[in-house]
């Protein structure tokens, strides 16, 4: 449905998007995740036809986003990050205007408007001015406007930005509702947002794709660690007892208030179970163990690790694995 092939975008000296490629199948809900300035919004703007790529190809439904821009835009429902609206218009007036812009015939217009008003729970504010609406309602109007022509592709850029927690929950459940059989691209810099809603996550950082896959697939890239609590006299004593073990790549220790020491031991590979060798090492060193449990890296810390490092001077992107 959406396909990007080796897409680059430069703004003068700034290389904002560096060779991004991905392919989104119809019906997929994809989260585009990354810190601010990672190139997410620029990528989205190239898909919506707001700006052409410096090089590479962007296509939607087989149509080129630059050459067949108007046809592509007809297929997209887009909610921009700032959700800009005309403050002087009424909710119904704005939706009527959008319906007209998307070429919905007069005879179908009322039905189309009523449908999105229903879906986005706007019936109580239909005749209110946009300037007088709360942020949560404004966001729903933006969503309704993006849906007015029943587009097969829905692109939402930071849809919960600036909302309060109850509005966020509300908007999230609305988004899940709206997905249906649509292809959806949900841009966010907040992990839980996409983790809960999306089938697939694409992580952007420094203009390139750092990871691409299902949340489980991404988790499998995370580090496996073992948490140990033992009655070592000092943290160093515990480290020296464990350091010699094969398969251990790192140990972090902390002295606990009750005199015990906690160690977080990182394995070289995710598959090897370090619990048994650790237990043996502690027995050999005459240490008493009160806790020994495996711990998987959370998506959160994996994500933070993925987006941290700057790219090398070549700035080449790793080709994203399609799930």
């Amino acid at each position: 449905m959406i396909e990007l092939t080796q897409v680059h975008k430069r703004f003068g000296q700034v290389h904002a998007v560096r060779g991004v490629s991905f392919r989104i199948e119809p019906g997929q809900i994809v989260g585009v995740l990354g810190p601010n300035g990672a190139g997410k919004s620029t990528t989205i703007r190239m898909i919506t036809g707001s700006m052409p790529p410096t090089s590479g190809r962007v296509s939607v439904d087989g149509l080129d986003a630059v050459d067949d821009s108007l046809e592509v835009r007809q297929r997209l429902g887009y909610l921009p990050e700032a959700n800009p609206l005309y403050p002087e218009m009424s909710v119904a007036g704005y939706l009527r205007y959008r319906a007209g812009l998307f070429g919905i015939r007069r005879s179908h217009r009322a039905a189309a408007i009523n449908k999105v008003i229903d879906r986005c729970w706007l019936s109580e504010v239909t005749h209110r001015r946009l300037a007088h609406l709360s942020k949560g309602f404004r966001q729903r109007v933006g969503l309704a406007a993006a849906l007015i022509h029943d587009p097969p592709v829905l692109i939402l850029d930071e849809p919960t930005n600036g909302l309060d927690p109850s509005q966020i929950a509300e908007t999230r459940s609305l988004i899940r509702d709206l997905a249906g059989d649509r292809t959806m691209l949900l841009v966010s810099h907040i992990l839980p947002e996409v983790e809960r809603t999306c089938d697939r996550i694409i992580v952007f950082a420094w203009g390139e794709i750092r990871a691409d896959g299902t949340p489980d697939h991404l988790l499998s890239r995370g580090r496996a660690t073992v948490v140990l609590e033992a009655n070592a006299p000092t943290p160093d004593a515990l480290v020296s007892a464990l350091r010699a073990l094969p398969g251990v790549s790192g140990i972090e220790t902390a002295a606990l208030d009750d005199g015990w020491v906690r160690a977080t031991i990182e394995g070289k590979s995710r598959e090897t179970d370090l619990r048994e060798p650790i237990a043996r090492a502690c027995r050999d060193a005459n240490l008493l163990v009160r806790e020994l449990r495996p711990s998987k890296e959370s998506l959160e810390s994996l994500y933070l690790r993925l987006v941290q490092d700057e790219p090398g001077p070549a700035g080449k992107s790793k080709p994203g694995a399609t799930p």
Partner: protein
Amino acid sequence: MTACWHIALREYASFFRTSIGWVVIALYMLLMGIWVARAIIPGEPASLRAVFQTSQILLLFVAPAVSMRLLAEERRSGTIETLGTSPASDWAIAFGKYFGALFFLLTMLAPTGLFLILLEVIADPDYGPIATGYLGVVLLGMLYLSVGLLFSSFTQNQIVAFLGTLFFFLILLLATTIGATALGEPWSEYLRILSLGARMEDFARGVIDTSHIVFFIVISFWFVSLTAMSLEFRRWR
């Protein structure tokens, strides 16, 4: 085409939903009222010739106030992004905005019909030159709005768009009057082609010269086309 129409309608309506439309109409009525009052001289024939002759100056402040927000406001508020990602081409956007402003200009002229009623009551005016005078004002307004639209596409700031348009026509006015006199032949001949005042004088006198009509329409459309290109350029930058 439908997109162009919907953009024009929205634009037209928004003049009245915001205060700008009413302020501009009031300003135009005030300025025109002052000129009409000065034009009515006891014993002289009842004519608005003087009013139409000075339309170049009258509209100089009013038309840029109409055109300044057209695209600058869309850029400032960011709505240009939702507009630019709808299936409306840059040409539909430019022409839609332009026609919206033009419809407003025509609406703005309607209440000046009060002056005609007044004139009819106190005297027996000749409606021929008045009709051509109005035609001249509309054509002049078309030109002012098209240039104003282009300036509005350059900036996010309505004041900058307003002043840019104002300066553009002030410079044109100075060049075709003081400039033409100072430079003498053959420059004054060339500058006369660009002189809006000379063309307005013909309209005020009751003369319909096709070349004037063509001049205003062609140049206006040329500036609207430039605006469409300016929008396209923004995309490609």
